[in-house]
């Protein structure tokens, strides 16, 4: 079943089907269904504790799911479906599949002991995809794309928050992922640094990579996203084009939330 879908699917189709996840008896995700088309830009909004980050982390299998499934181009990330059984994949295979999905964290998680350049070259070199020289060339190109070619030799601590997050984006791009996940990429930033990071994400949105962005920046979501998905209590309670969901929400919880955020 998986192979058939994988052959027909285009790059970067994410299908989330009836996903449940609990932590110590508390259900964080209670049956999420969501399909993200290749090249689509989806913004996930919702109050804290609504399961946004958890949902994002199930997509690249940083969290496993209790029920349901998450597939990227028809492929499960942590398992292989054969003859009606789920076979847990070896770590190497999980890692290989995971590289199709980049993630940008809220608090950057750059490697502090490596320079900006080394942060970007690390994964392609570690996976044996590129020689050191080729990785360096690629990384310099990516740093240039996020406007940081002059900071290549700097350590993360010598960079501002916005610059660090842009390095983190370049690092995620180095593996040429089909899907990039953003976990509140601007929440840890000073207000005046938010813009430079959003600019980079806006550029990515033009290029046809599937982007799933958990964010609190309602204005940005309206501008960049093809679709806004609103999560509450571990469920999708409303979704649609930003012009509808963000302007004339139907669900009272969404109306409430937007009233507070935009106030």
């Amino acid at each position, binding site marked *: 079943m998986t192979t058939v879908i994988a052959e027909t699917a285009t790059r970067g189709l994410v299908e989330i089907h009836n996903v449940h996840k609990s932590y110590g008896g508390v259900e964080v995700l209670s049956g999420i269904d969501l399909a993200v088309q290749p090249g689509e830009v989806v913004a996930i909004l919702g109050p804290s504790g609504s399961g946004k980050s958890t949902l994002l982390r199930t997509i*690249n299998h*940083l969290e496993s799911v209790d029920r349901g499934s998450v597939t990227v181009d028809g492929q499960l990330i942590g398992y292989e479906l054969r003859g009606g059984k789920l076979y847990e994949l070896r*770590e*190497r295979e999980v*890692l*290989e599949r*995971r*590289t199709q*999905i*980049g*993630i940008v*964290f809220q*608090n950057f*998680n*750059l*490697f*502090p*002991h*490596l*320079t900006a350049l080394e942060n970007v070259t*690390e*994964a392609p070199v*570690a*996976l044996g995809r590129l020689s050191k020289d080729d990785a360096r060339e690629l990384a310099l190109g990516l740093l240039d794309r996020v406007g940081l070619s002059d900071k290549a*030799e*700097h*350590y*993360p*601590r*010598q960079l501002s928050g916005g610059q660090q997050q842009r390095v983190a984006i370049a*690092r*995620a791009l180095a*593996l040429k992922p089909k899907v990039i996940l953003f976990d509140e990429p601007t929440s840890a930033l000073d207000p005046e640094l938010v813009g430079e990071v959003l600019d980079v994400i806006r550029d990515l949105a033009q290029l046809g990579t599937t982007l799933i962005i958990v964010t609190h920046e309602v204005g940005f979501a309206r501008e960049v996203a093809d679709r806004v998905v609103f999560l509450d209590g571990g469920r999708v309670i409303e979704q649609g084009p930003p012009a509808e969901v963000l302007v004339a929400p139907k669900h009272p919880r969404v109306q409430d939330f937007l009233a507070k955020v935009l106030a």
Partner: protein
Amino acid sequence: MTDTLPRRPGAAEAATPPSAASSSRVDLGDLPVVHTKHWFRWSIGIVVLFVVAQFAWSLVTNENYEWDVFAHYFLSEPVLQGVGLTLLLTVVAASIGFFLGTLLALARLAKSPLLNSAAWLFIWFFRSVPLVVQIIVWYNLGYLYPTLGLGTPFTTDFWIVEFPTVQLISAFAAAILGLSLNQAAYSAEIIRGGLVSVDQGQLEAAAALGIPPRRRLTRIILPQAMRSIVPNATNEVIGLVKGASVVFVIALPEVFYAVQVIYNRNSRVIPLLLVAVVWYTIITTALSIAQYYIERHYARGTVRVLPPTPLQRARHWAGVQWARLGDSETGPAPLVGVDAPVVAKATFQGSSNDAKNSGGAGA
């Protein structure tokens, strides 16, 4: 950034005439600073200096130190052999200890409950038994197991190879076994402590980037863990240098045993103990210097700019003195730590200004 760069000495004075000091727009960088006098600090300093001087004086004048005896034995053959053995025991036991310790730490952090509890038991046992007792037991293992070898499991009647234990475990082997297993137990906890101190997000980021587990450990987690491992590990190694002296119980002639043999013969206890003390001090000093540079290596990226090493500092100071002597127009290059792009110039502005001022005063 441009206005924080060190300026050429003459230029600054010319640009700001002395009268500028009285105006409301003062450029602090161009004025001499009169430092606060710390009277209390000075008086305590003088007391300490007096005590140290008194002690140093007694070292020279008190004949009971018998420095001639000290000098006679300091580089004598048995002492040097003892130092050699101490170093050998330290190096071998530390290497085996830290290697085993790393494995134990990883086992303690592994997901397998079996590995987990096995490692916990090992650490628990070897931290419980005093080192001296361990060494004596290893040395006398023959009483427990007269022969060691390979044969059918759980039987004692069929052997493929078999050796008498007494032959297999010499005094040296017993010392190495005791020291390194003991060391492994302690270093396991130090290494585990270092590994868990690294932010979980680092592991997550590495996993999300598809970096394979072994490289995740060696390239991402360990280098960051080393920051907290190195000081404790050096403590352990220094402890081991001196801990190795307990092997005198099985008559291994390391440095402490060597001086004991000599003073038991000639009764010059103090000068011979001093021989051992000075040797231990020398080894510890070397290790402390190594620690400084290893820590510095792993501090990459943790501070914006690494402070200069004592050597760099000394060179800079010498440069300043030289510039003062030679009445040179251009001061020495600003003191800059390694790994310091751009930002360093701003940070060391102070020192380059000092150089400038002293150069200017001479002119």
